[in-house]
């Protein structure tokens, strides 16, 4: 995730202090990974240097956390460009799981067991996310659904690979 663009986007609704920005980011996007204060201030320094934000005011007491930042016209354009640019889809061609399956077959280890273990681990995480989704608000549900659909895709691959293990073993031993 581009923290810079996200913080800039949050500033579009009005100027904020660094602490407020961190809180808004954590609340909306942080979930399991809240921002460190250091990340906020280093990012804001970079945005300031690039002319995407300006310091709108400094509260008494000094310290970098007292600065209030406002987005500039250049900053608004930058956010717009970022939103309009599609994210590069992940091709998933360098799969650790695939590598492990092939190595297990090459070394005479149990590839089926490896796939079973992975399936159980995926389902364990899916259960955790499903519980969180049940107890959460709409934002939580959408975030968890995104993760659940990806995990489900992995599981379908695990199932398909389990069904093709014999053929794969033949091919890689040729």
């Amino acid at each position, binding site marked *: 995730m581009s923290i810079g663009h996200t913080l800039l986007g949050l500033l579009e609704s009005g100027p904020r202090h660094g602490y407020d920005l961190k809180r808004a980011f954590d609340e909306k996007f942080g979930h399991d990974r809240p921002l460190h204060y250091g990340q906020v201030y280093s990012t804001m320094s970079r945005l300031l240097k690039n002319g995407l934000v300006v310091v709108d005011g400094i509260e008494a007491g000094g310290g970098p956390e007292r600065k209030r930042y406002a987005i500039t016209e250049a900053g608004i354009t930058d956010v717009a460009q970022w939103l309009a640019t599609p994210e590069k889809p992940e091709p998933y061609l360098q799969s650790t799981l695939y590598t492990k399956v092939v190595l297990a077959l090459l070394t005479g280890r149990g590839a089926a067991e490896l796939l*079973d273990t992975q*399936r*159980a681990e*995926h*389902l364990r995480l*899916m*259960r955790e*996310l*499903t519980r969180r989704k*049940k107890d959460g608000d709409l934002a939580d549900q959408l975030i968890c659904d995104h993760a*659940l*659909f990806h*995990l*489900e895709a992995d*599981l*379908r691959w695990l*199932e398909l690979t*389990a*069904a093709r293990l014999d053929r794969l073993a033949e091919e890689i031993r040729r």
Partner: protein
Amino acid sequence: MTATPLLRAVGLAKTYGPTPALAGADFSIRAGEVVAVMGPSGSGKSTLLHCLAGIVRPDAGTITYDGRELTALSDGARSSLRRTDFGFVFQFGQLVPELTCVENVALPLRLNGEKRKAAEARAVEWLARLEVDDTAAKRPGEISGGQGQRVAVARALVTSPRVIFADEPTGALDSLNGERVMRLLTDASRDTGAAVVLVTHEARVAAYSDREIVVRDGSVRDAEWAA
């Protein structure tokens, strides 16, 4: 394992013609537990469910339910047990089209000899709990697939069964409706302490369970049972 299983199967085998559907399946479930039965199409998931529910008699193996050997019971005794202790949710065609939804939900109670008024009063409660009370006077043909499935869940739960057998209960529903059915089914069963045997090939549905077992080529590895 921390508690005695409510339902336990050991070494189940079942053959249809030349095709082995189950070949040494072990399974156990405790009261209040939701267990997903997963596996590819044709792996024997549904046969396992049918054997566990006493619908199909296995060729070999034993099934013990609440201390009784299910496989030793007569057809009549198994049928009676299915009415009193088990509830069923299937993928399709489980509601009687000529009856209203409240009559459909009250049906298992009526079959158990309960008076119409009392049976329908309980049916209405369960329809409300499954968030489909507005369907009470409608016939299954007049409601959506998602509503129909929730009515079917209400019917499965109305007799306060100790085990619910659900075979691909969301298979005909879109994601949102499927999730709603799963949430309501698992919440209601956990509240009532019923065990749920959930056959599904969908991981997102299985994620509502407490644990899963995988059926492959008619055999089952039940880690809990083996523990």
